[in-house]
């Protein structure tokens, strides 16, 4: 691997339930701050058992010019802010020429879709505005951010539900390694709607036994967990070839070592240990490293019964019982399409601080989960390589490896 095919991260941007910016994300995570709250729409729906979500604090976005904002639902705005932050950290005021952009989401804006549906049901399709359509195309956030920031390279929106953010980081990594581009913004974005909670609730995948204590609602790996808490946000990283970063003289935050993806074809909703294991082994092979070289697995671990068991059993099989493992969903909830990239940003910060964040709300690991080293309190430790997992409903799995700059 030479400097033109070695891929590094030189910028990061985030909008999370802790607020806009990577700094707020890191502060919230480090402090174990609560960002979950009761959702009144869920409280009014007796058939929905989960009542909690995590959302980005309400903000007045009128500082963004109207012509930029008119094509953006909330998830587009989150992406715009995250993209600006990532570009700035990478040393750019304006997007460089032929910048690649790889970003998607699980769904597009449910709020805007429901508005359109109400026109249809009321036989008032003449009320549809151009801005409505421009906000609900599958690639609306991607296109709107390209227009706003003049990103003129290849823009592609991979959409694989909960794996979207990490899949798009993988796409960016492959695009740079292949020579398609030398620089790329990549990640995922998502906006919350109570419908998300209701859908996962029907699948019996939500947190239901801590509605009166939102802070403890999501408990990855814990024996008392019942499921996930839906959340929202956006995470984008600026990747480029090491050659490009060295030529520009910008600080390298992390190196992307490898990426792998596979698909579980046995079941849409229940991950199999075997396929997850193959995914993690594939990423190790892609990076040409051994399991022993991985210092931490930042798990997908959403807090569902089946998902956490399958992932940790697979992790034990690949890495053995000494593997240190954590999940950030206890802090953030499940930011869906943004989770892989938002949590990767946290991984880069953990590498920089040489600190493993604990899994929030994990008190007693479930005996059915794999035998690994569950990090339950902040741990200062030499940290060189982290594997990040993201798995989607639909069976789309991916694993990415990042390393602290040498």
């Amino acid at each position, binding site marked *: 691997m030479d400097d033109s095919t070695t891929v590094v991260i030189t910028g990061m941007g985030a909008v999370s339930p802790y607020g806009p910016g990577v700094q707020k994300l890191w502060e919230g995570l480090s402090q174990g701050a609560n960002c979950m709250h009761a959702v009144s729409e869920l409280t009014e729906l007796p058939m929905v058992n989960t009542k909690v979500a995590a959302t980005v604090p309400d903000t007045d976005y009128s500082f963004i010019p*109207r012509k930029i904002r008119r094509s953006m639902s909330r998830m587009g705005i989150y992406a715009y802010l995250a993209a600006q932050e990532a570009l700035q950290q990478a040393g750019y005021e304006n997007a460089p020429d032929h910048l690649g952009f790889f970003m998607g989401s699980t769904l597009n804006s449910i709020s805007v879709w429901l508005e359109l549906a109400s026109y249809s049901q009321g036989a008032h399709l003449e009320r549809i*505005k*151009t*801005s409505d359509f421009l906000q609900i195309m599958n690639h609306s956030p991607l296109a709107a951010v390209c227009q706003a920031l003049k990103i003129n390279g290849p823009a592609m929106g991979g959409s694989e539900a909960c794996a979207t953010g990490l899949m798009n980081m993988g796409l960016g990594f492959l695009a740079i390694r292949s020579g398609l581009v030398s620089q790329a913004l990549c990640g995922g974005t998502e906006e919350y709607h109570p419908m998300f909670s209701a859908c996962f609730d029907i699948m019996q995948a939500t947190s239901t036994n801590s509605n009166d204590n939102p802070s403890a609602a999501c408990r990855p790996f814990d024996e008392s967990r019942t499921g996930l808490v839906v959340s929202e946000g956006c995470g984008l990283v600026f990747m480029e070839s090491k050659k490009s970063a060295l030529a520009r003289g910008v600080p390298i935050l992390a190196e992307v070592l490898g990426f792998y993806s596979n698909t579980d074809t046995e079941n849409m909703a229940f991950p199999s240990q075997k396929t997850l294991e193959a995914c993690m082994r594939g990423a190790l092979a892609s990076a040409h490293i051994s399991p022993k070289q991985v210092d931490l697995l930042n798990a997908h671990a959403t807090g569902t019964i089946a998902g956490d068991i399958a992932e940790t059993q697979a992790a034990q099989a690949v890495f053995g019982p000494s593997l240190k493992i954590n999940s950030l969903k206890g802090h953030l909830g499940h930011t869906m399409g943004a989770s892989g990239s938002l949590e990767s940003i946290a991984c880069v910060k953990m590498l920089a601080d040489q600190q493993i964040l604990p899994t929030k709300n994990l008190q007693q690991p479930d005996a059915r989960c794999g035998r690994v080293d569950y990090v339950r309190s902040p741990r200062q430790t030499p940290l060189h390589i982290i594997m990040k997992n993201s798995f989607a409903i639909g069976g789309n799995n991916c694993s990415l490896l990042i390393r602290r700059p040498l």
Partner: protein
Amino acid sequence: MITREEIIKQTNEALQKEFEFKPEQLVPAARLRDDLGLDSLDAVDMVVVLEQKFGVTLRQGYDLRTIVTLNDLYDFIEKLAQTHTN
């Protein structure tokens, strides 16, 4: 029948809400494109909100090339409202 003053008031209210104009921007001589910055996408959305506001169909007869200023827009709606009433 709706008065011209009412047409101006309601049009301005709709444009302020849709395009976030300040009241002082909406002077009769203001040019929709050159002074207020409305582009072709805005022109379509403007028709949609004004149709809802006045309960008339504007889109068939509407032509941004002939409606240059806000005053032209008021004239157009007034004429249409009269036709509608007749």
